[in-house]
C-alpha cells in the first residue's frame, strides 16, 4: 500500500500536474503535495502524487555508506 517509486520529472503542466518518466513509461502525476520541483528532479510517486523530492547528495552518501566509505570520501 505504501509502495512508491522514484521517477524523473520531465515536464511541468498546469494545475500542479507534471509528467514523469519511469524507465521510458510516461505518466501524468500531481505535484500538489510538494514545492520547488523542476524538470530533471526525481520525486517519490505514490498513488499519482509526488510525496517528496529526492536529494541526490544524500543518495550518494547512502551509497557510500553501503560500500563502507565515510561520507566525506564520497563527496
Amino acid at each position, binding site marked *: *500500500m505504501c509502495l512508491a517509486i522514484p521517477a524523473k520529472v520531465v515536464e511541468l503542466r498546469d494545475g500542479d500536474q507534471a509528467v514523469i518518466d*519511469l524507465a521510458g513509461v510516461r505518466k501524468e502525476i500531481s505535484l500538489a503535495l510538494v514545492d520547488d520541483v523542476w524538470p530533471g528532479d526525481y520525486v517519490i510517486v505514490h498513488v499519482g502524487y509526488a510525496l517528496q523530492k529526492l536529494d541526490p547528495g544524500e543518495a550518494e552518501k547512502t551509497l557510500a555508506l553501503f560500500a563502507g566509505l565515510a561520507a566525506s570520501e564520497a563527496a
Partner: protein
Amino acid sequence: MKYVDEFRDGELAKTIAARIAIAADPDRTYHFMEFCGGHTHAISRYGVKDLLPPNVVMVHGPGCPVCVLPIGRIDMAIDLVLPSSQEEGAGNNVTLCTYADVMRVPASGGLSLMKAKARGADIRMVYSAADAVRIAREEPDREVVFFAIGFETTTPPTALVVKQAAALGLKNFSVFCNHVLTPSAIAHILESPEVRELGTVVIDGFVGPAHVSTIIGSQPYDYFAEEYRKPVVIAGFEPLDVMQAIEMLVNQVNDGRAEVENEFSRAVTPEGNAKAKALVADVFELRRSFEWRGLGKVPYSALRLKDEWAAFDAERRFAMTGKDVPDNKACECGAILRGVKKPTDCKVFGTACTPETPIGSCMVSSEGACAAHYTYGRYRSAA
C-alpha cells in the same frame, strides 16, 4: 532505473552482510521489528534473511494497511453498495472506488469487494484518489464513495481530494475514511503484554517506515527511542536500505544506544513534508479509538473527517454503523500482526489459505507477511 538499481546491488549486499556478521555478537540474539509491509516484502523477495547471521532475527510488524483493516470495515463498505444487503435499497446508486489491494480481503458471509462486484455492486478499482473525483464529476447521478485506506503515506492525497471536491462543489462525492497512524501502532506494540510482561515478543529495535516517514519526518520516532529505549533506523524499501538499517541497529544495540537514525535521508527529513502535514491537519482529526485487526481497539490511532468536511464523510452521509466481526477462527493473522507468530505457525498457511483463496488479510496484500512468505519463502522453509 536510477535510485532503484543501485540500491539492489548484489555485491554491495554481500559487503554489508559481511559487516553485520562481524558486528553481531555471537553471544546474544538481536530481534528487530520491521514495522512496514514494504520492508517485509523486500526482506522476503530479496532473501535478506539468508544474508543475516542466525542470531539476527527479523520480526514482522503490523504496517500493512490492508492487513490491519478489520472485517467489519469491509462489511460496512459492502453494505453500502450491494443491493441485496440494502434493507432500504438506498445503496443502488452508490459507486465505491477503492485501491486494488482491498478488493480481495475476505469479509463476512464469504464475501469480499471482488465478490460483491461480481454480484452486481458498482465497485471500481482506482489508481489514485483523483480518479474517484473524476468519476464523481463524470457521473453526477452516482453517489461516489472513495474507500480511503492507508497509513500517513496515503492520507495526504485523500485530504487533497476532499478539498478539491469542496472547491468543485461536488455534491456526490464522499470518503469512507480508514486512514491509520503509524506511531500509535508502534506504541501499542511496545505497550502490549507480549512485549512488556510476558516477554514472548522480544524487540531490540525497529526498522522504521520509509514512505510514511517522507511525510511525518523522523521526529515522531524520538519518543520511542527516549521513552522505551528502543533504537529506530528509518530505512528505504530497497534491499540494501534494509541491510544497512540492520547494520546500524546492531551497532546501536552493541553500543547501548537508543537513537533515531535515518538511513533514508535521500527522502526523509526530520520535519517531513510540511505541506502534506498541513493539509492532513486541515481535513482530518483523531478518532478516539479505532479497531485494528490483530491489535484490537487502539486509542487515537486513526483519522476521520473534521466536522467542517462532514458533507464529504461517507460514514455520516449514509449513517454507516460500525460492526464488530471476529476473524476466522483458523486464521492467525492477529498473532502474526503482533509479531507473536510467524506465517508458518498458522495451520491454514499455504493449504486452505493461499493468495488465490485468502482466509486472512495477511495473505492478500503483497506486503502481508503471509503473502510475502508464500510467494518467496515457502519452499525454503520446507527444505
